[in-house]
């Protein structure tokens, strides 16, 4: 199953349309879409406007491939699980978000092998036909950055002074 998710704030019709077109040509690949508050109705996919957090986790876990906007929740979850993720950044010029921070976010996470960035329906189709492979979860007890940040927060909680460097 492919799980497509666009977060809770804004719909993302450009992505959902392109995915629905692909799904129409690939009936063997069931797709579940989480659409947010959208008037768009896909013809070839199951869809839901919003999910409860536990349902979202379940769809995410069960999916062999996730398609999404460049949202941090989805990115972090896919890295945590090593789940293949195809993501399309929202563009402010098309009214898809307030600014282009999703372009910057995408660029930062382009290096992870389970993540593929696509910018239009053609690139999306190519990625769906040849999706990225699952990887080992990158998030683990050995996560140096996370441990450093938690360490600094603990130090602050204990009354310490935190400085750069």
């Amino acid at each position, binding site marked *: 199953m492919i799980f497509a998710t666009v*977060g*809770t*704030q804004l719909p993302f019709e450009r992505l959902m349309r392109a995915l629905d077109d692909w799904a129409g040509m690939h009936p063997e690949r069931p797709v579940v879409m989480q659409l947010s508050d959208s008037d768009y109705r896909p013809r070839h996919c199951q869809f839901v406007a919003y999910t*409860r*957090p*536990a349902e979202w986790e379940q769809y995410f876990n069960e999916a062999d491939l996730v398609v999404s906007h460049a*949202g*941090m*929740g*989805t*990115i*972090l*979850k896919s*890295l945590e699980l090593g789940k293949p993720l195809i993501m399309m950044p929202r563009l402010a010029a098309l009214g898809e978000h*307030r600014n282009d*921070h999703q372009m*910057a*976010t995408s*660029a*930062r996470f382009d290096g992870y092998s389970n993540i593929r960035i696509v910018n239009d329906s053609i690139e999306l189709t190519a990625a769906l036909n040849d999706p990225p492979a699952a990887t080992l979860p*990158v*998030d683990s007890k050995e*996560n*140096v*950055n*996370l*441990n*450093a*940040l*938690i*360490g*600094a*927060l*603990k130090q*602050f*909680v204990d009354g310490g002074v*935190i*400085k*750069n460097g």
Partner: protein
Amino acid sequence: MVDARRRKVLLVASHGGHWVQLRRLAPAFDALDVHYVSTNPGLLAEVTPALLSVVPDANLRNKMAMLELAFRMLGIVFRHRPDLVVSTGAAPGFFALVFGKLLGARTIWVDSIANAERLSLSGAKVKPFADLWLTQWPHLAKANGPIFKGAVL
């Protein structure tokens, strides 16, 4: 009876990426009495036995929602009187830090890792109310803050 000596922390984030990041940082506050605030009641299952208060989400496009959020957050901070307030964003965290600071709590802002080019809007505005003001990107750290100490990834 509540143990009066155990310090209280309010952990605040809107649902989605902010929440996932906040939850990842939660082990830093294991020694404290933790109370969560977010925008989706379904998150309670994930944090039980800790408690969760729910506030409406808001952004600058909707002034009324922003006002309601501010009032609700003021009520929560006033009722709980936390010793520490921590947030990864966005609007709910901004108000939590403002009111927390005004009511005498120490405050921590960890700007979302999604803000790789510049600090988030709420992250930039919250500076005067944050005792610890952090970015998750080393190239955004400056001498007078924000500070970089690590990231959730």
